[in-house]
């Protein structure tokens, strides 16, 4: 009772090789930058694209096995799909949209409509039956799309950037609502997103896809705390360094040395948040043992703070107040010392 997929496909520049597993009732967030192959993976699972190689199995039924010549058509898969712009059929009413799947499977019109009406009620859309998709808000459209997909009781639900089409103001509310609806669904769910917050909130587990390969997976908190690639680190707002640890120190490929709070051995990731970085005009004195002379590359507003990108033996992102920028006279090309307390650094095996 679950999804086991081993996807392999070469298309243009993309070479996708990814193994995905989703348990019943579990929501897996597939996180990755544009062009990583996330949407392609969904199309493979939906059966819209054929696999080059590999295998897809859902609830013990083989959907794809190119080696054995198996390819189940999309309409026979019991896989539901909700995409970024929802793709509600524009010339049908909301009710007809939701009833579409049941009608396509041969259910008489009246029964299909009655069931669709029930789903709309469940989605808080009673009274919207006769509306056209164009008359709905983004959040309402998403719920209709969800009802349309779920009404046929799919065993696998695929959501492709389900919140990307919404404006920033409505996104949090719709996200929370989507999370609630997904919690009530007992099939497997795969949510594709490039937004880390979305992945963290919606996913029981996060799978990070980069250039067609899975680079990291785990519970959201784990991924957020211990990023394994620059991409993930940047997404979750952490500085990420890679080095070789020996006792309380770790040496970076550049030769720079980072002091650690705990013993560690072998290849490690070293992560610390930008707000933990202190900038000063001269080498700082005191408890911070990690201090590096750097050159400022960029300054950028980041919420109430200013994000400073500094290069040197240890490239660092630092978040400082605008006041500090003024006091220190920070500007691109200027020299500065960056320091981080060892206790602010988290170290984990690479």
């Amino acid at each position: 009772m679950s999804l086991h997929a081993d996807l392999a496909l070469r298309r243009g520049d993309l070479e996708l090789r990814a193994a995905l597993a989703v348990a019943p009732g579990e929501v897996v967030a597939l996180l990755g930058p544009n062009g990583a192959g996330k949407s392609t993976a969904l199309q493979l699972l939906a059966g819209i694209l054929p696999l080059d190689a590999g295998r897809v199995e859902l609830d013990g039924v083989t959907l794809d096995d190119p080696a054995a010549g198996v390819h189940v058509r999309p309409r026979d898969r019991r896989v539901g799909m909700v995409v970024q712009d929802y793709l509600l059929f524009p010339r049908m009413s909301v009710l007809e949209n939701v009833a579409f799947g049941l009608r396509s499977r041969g259910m008489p019109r009246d029964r299909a409509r009655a069931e669709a009406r029930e789903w709309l009620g469940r989605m808080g859309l009673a009274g919207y039956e006769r509306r056209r998709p164009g008359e709905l808000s983004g959040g309402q459209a998403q719920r209709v799309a969800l009802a349309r997909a779920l009404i046929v009781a799919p065993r696998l639900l695929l959501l492709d950037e389900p919140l990307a089409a919404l404006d920033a103001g409505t996104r949090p509310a719709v996200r929370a609502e989507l999370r609630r609806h997904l919690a009530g669904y007992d099939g497997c769910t795969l949510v594709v997103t490039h937004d880390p917050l979305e992945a963290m909130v919606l996913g029981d587990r996060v799978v990070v896809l980069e250039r067609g390969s899975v680079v990291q997976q785990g519970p959201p908190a784990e991924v957020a705390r211990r990023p394994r690639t620059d991409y993930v680190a940047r997404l979750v707002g952490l500085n990420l360094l890679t080095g070789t640890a020996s006792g309380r120190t770790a040496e970076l490929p550049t030769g720079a040395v980072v002091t650690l709070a705990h013993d560690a051995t072998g290849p490690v990731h070293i992560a610390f948040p930008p707000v933990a970085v202190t900038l000063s005009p001269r080498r700082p004195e005191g408890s911070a043992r990690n201090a590096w002379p750097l050159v400022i590359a960029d300054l950028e507003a980041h919420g109430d703070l200013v994000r400073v990108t500094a290069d040197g033996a240890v490239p660092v992102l630092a978040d400082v107040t605008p006041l500090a920028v003024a006091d220190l006279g920070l500007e691109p090309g200027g020299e500065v010392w960056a320091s981080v307390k060892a206790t602010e650094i988290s170290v984990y095996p690479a």
Partner: protein
Amino acid sequence: MNPTRRTEDLRVPAGLLIPAALGVAILVLPMAGLVVRAPWSDLPSILASDEVLTALRLSLVTATVATAAALACGVPIAWLLARTTLPGRSVLRGLVTVPLVLPPVVGGVALLMVFGRRGLVGGWLYDTFGISLPFTTEAVVLAQVFVAMPFLVVAVEGALRTADRRYDDVAATLGATSWTTFRRVTLPAVTPGVLAGAVLCWARALGEFGATVTFAGSFPGTTRTLPLEAYVAINSGDSDVAIVLSLLMIAVSVTILVGLRERWIGTA
């Protein structure tokens, strides 16, 4: 908002204005000529004459039937061209659109060679069923379909190509067969394109002359449509009737094109 700027924006270079005016004159003057030369006092009696009414009725019926036939066959052709990866697709597209550039008389000759009583298909039809197509109203429709269907195919194929194929994918994941998807999702999405194509097709069928006169002949009530009636009139020295018929065809075409354009295509 700024009147000075607007005036500058509206200044048209003479290099564009003069050829444009010339072009408009070439298009509009012949029609204006018809209006000027029209026998206005005799107009009602000519319009109400049996010949004209018979030809008008025949034209409207045949063009409409031809358009229906073109829709029934042309939309599937357009779908094949736009949505499949058949190996000979570009050849098929070429063949289907050839009548667009072919002189209609050539189309009529070709139809005669195939569907004539001694033609490839027509010979068999005649020998087996005693069916002979030339000189029948069916032949008029066939000739019109031949010359007009490509307009529909081209318009619908364009609409299908610009339509979002992901709707079809969604329908498939919802369990729809490709036929259900076509009927309930694809076709409604391209309705404006289909209508535009049908209007073009109808207008072309209404004006069809060369293939009709060659393949279907010319007999009042059976095969003599408005353009043929006009041709007969001018060849019989009856220029007044020819002018009235020409005006009538212009009026019908303009009404249909403008009316349908505003109402169906413009809003989509």
